[in-house]
């Protein structure tokens, strides 16, 4: 059987990749996708923990993570669609009306 450290390391690697995408990419579509990657990594870690203890709770948590990802994606995508009317290039950096105007 697989050592749980291996799959935890894989989860960590995936999480880091997602984080990298989140911090580096400007396009909002990629930002959304990076968040999904990070959620998935978290799901993998839950499954790993479930395997480590031989326990169904890991899978239950994955179901809840899926749930969250679905709800979050629905709202995030609708927001991107709305933003498309204002910012045609979907540049996350130009959505900065909440900055401190001196």
């Amino acid at each position, binding site marked *: 059987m697989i050592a749980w450290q291996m799959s935890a390391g894989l989860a960590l690697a995936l999480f880091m990749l997602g984080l990298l*995408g989140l911090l580096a990419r400007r396009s909002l579509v990629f930002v959304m*996708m990076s968040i999904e990657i990070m959620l998935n990594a978290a799901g993998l870690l839950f499954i790993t923990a479930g395997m480590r203890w*031989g326990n169904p709770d890991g*899978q*239950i948590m994955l179901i809840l993570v899926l749930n969250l990802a*679905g709800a979050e994606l629905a709202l995030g995508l609708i927001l991107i669609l709305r933003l498309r009317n204002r910012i045609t290039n979907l540049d996350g950096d130009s959505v900065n009306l909440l900055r401190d105007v001196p």
Partner: protein
Amino acid sequence: MIIVFYAAAGLTLLTTAAAITRANPVHALLFFVLSLIGMGVIFFTMGAPFAAALEIIVYAGAIMVLFLFVVMMLSLDIAAKRRETGWMIHSVWIVPLVLVAGLGIELVRVFLGSSATGVERIVSPQEVGLRLFTTDLSAVELASILLLTGLIGAFHLGRKDR
């Protein structure tokens, strides 16, 4: 089994890395779907067949397809692709790489700190279902409320401007 795990892990890592570096969002999403399928295989090898099925059916099959539809509705053209390429200069990767490396080092230390081995057991869907609908019933209710919130929010935000 171990070979399958390593093969799937390599596929997942590669496709994920490809997903976050593509300029074309549709390509990126397809890579991500591939990575999710790899993830499903990994779940299966780790003794979680129900999670594996869900990952492929719900995540790759439903959620990502929804994502793909929306990206296509955005009708990104060749100019958008060029813009994406222009944003991905080397310098934007520096700070994120430093931060991610810091996080990686720290978490690897955490994982290396413990050395226990896993319990070898396949957790069947039946077991998951039993647990989910007995002791964790309130979590199911909360999840349904969350989905309902998402539904109402999406409906509200998606209405035409008056």
